[in-house]
């Protein structure tokens, strides 16, 4: 079995990170669904119910009176945000595995994913085209999921990849991955998303978060949001190890996201604050 076949084999074996999250996603995909179905699935899961209520009562979401019902909490958060919360609340070990192929310690993948999710939610407010902030959050959470599979195939090769980046023989770390194993974390993530039957919006965000110009027009706003959010997480110090900051900014982001240099400094601060607040709700997964 060659490396690409071995990676494909691992993709086939990778379990879904959160069953309830993906069940809710499937319901939301149907435009004629009712909120009751989402409430039902949420209340069937005690851990999810608790987390949804906790998040709805944080300063970011709560308006006035304390939120005591799932119904009101979901209305405040939005259905897509419930999906994000379900992924956060799941006992999946996915996000907390150390990524040895990236020299990334236990928990760094979780911090990076959560910070990107928070940043995507904040960046979505600056979008020229309106997108759901919950969708942005969930896409941010899942954007690097391919690293959990490709990491083991990159083990022992980090110096080679770092040197390729530093010597300029590759454009960025994504190309260094492709050179080393014939595929990259975004493509592997896309394969996982297809295997799990994620909605196209999320699959494309995972596939194109480093090359947003390649995304289909209808998803570009979301993909540019995740692209920028990923870079913001890295700028803020939350990368996934050796590849941190070794990616380019696509300057066409201005066609989709209106953000000035001054906005950017404030945005970094807001992301830091919101990240700390949400991380306290989901301190560590999978242990």
């Amino acid at each position, binding site marked *: 079995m060659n490396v690409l076949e071995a990676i494909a084999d691992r993709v086939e074996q990778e379990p879904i990170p959160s069953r309830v999250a993906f069940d809710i996603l499937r319901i939301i995909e149907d435009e004629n669904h009712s909120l009751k179905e989402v409430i039902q699935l949420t209340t069937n899961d005690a851990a999810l119910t608790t987390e949804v209520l906790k998040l709805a009562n944080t300063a970011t979401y709560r308006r006035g009176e304390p939120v005591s019902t799932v119904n009101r909490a979901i209305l405040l958060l939005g259905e897509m945000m419930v999906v994000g919360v379900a992924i956060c609340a799941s006992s999946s070990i996915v996000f907390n595995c150390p990524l040895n192929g*990236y*020299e*990334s310690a236990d928990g760094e993948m979780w911090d990076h994913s959560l910070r990107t999710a928070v940043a995507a939610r904040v960046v979505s407010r600056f979008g020229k085209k309106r997108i759901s902030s919950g969708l942005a959050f969930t896409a941010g959470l899942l954007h690097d999921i391919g690293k959990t599979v490709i990491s083991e195939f990159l083990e022992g090769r*980090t*110096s080679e*990849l*770092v040197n390729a*980046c530093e010597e300029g023989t590759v454009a*960025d770390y994504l190309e260094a991955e492709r050179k080393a194993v014939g595929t990259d974390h975004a493509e592997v993530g896309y394969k996982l998303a297809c295997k799990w039957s994620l909605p196209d919006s999320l699959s494309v965000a995972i596939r194109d978060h480093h090359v947003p110009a390649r995304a289909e027009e209808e998803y570009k706003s979301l993909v540019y949001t995740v692209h920028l959010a990923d*870079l913001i997480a*890295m*700028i*803020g*110090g*939350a*990368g996934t*190890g*050796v590849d*941190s*900051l*070794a*990616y*380019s*900014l696509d*300057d066409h982001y201005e066609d989709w996201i209106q953000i000035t*240099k*001054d906005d*950017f*400094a*404030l945005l*970094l*601060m807001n992301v*830091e604050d919101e990240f700390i607040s949400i991380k306290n709700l989901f301190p560590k997964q999978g242990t």
Partner: protein
Amino acid sequence: MKIVYVGVGEYATSNTGGVLVKTLALGSCVAVVALDRVSRSVGLLHVALPESSINPKRAEERPGMFADTGVDKLIASMRSAGYQGGELIIKLAGGASIMDPNNTFNIGKRNVLSIRKCLWRHKLGAVAEDVGGNISRSVSIDISQGKVTVSSPGRGEWLL
């Protein structure tokens, strides 16, 4: 060995031997290290943003977040730890950026420039800098030896 971690927007000073002062994962953030040979005290500040004017309220709550208010606090804190004024060894690390030829969001560079400016106001300047580029850095200071080490995933560690 006891380790004191300095988070984003925080600062710490110590003159206790056998202590390691560390700050982790500096993206565009900058670590300002201060070493006073006379009092054998050490300070570390983790700056996130260049100017406190963007949010004065936040600067009051957390002065270490910004270069201008943070450097002032670090120097004041060094004085409390025994620094009497005069020579102070300053080292800087961090201030990295993503790969962006247009320097659109170069907060890292702006952080470094603002820190240098604030240090000049105190008649201080850095004797060593490891700043810029596209790498994430962590910094640790061994108080007993006055040794400052920078590390980065995949690149090992080196003395500053």
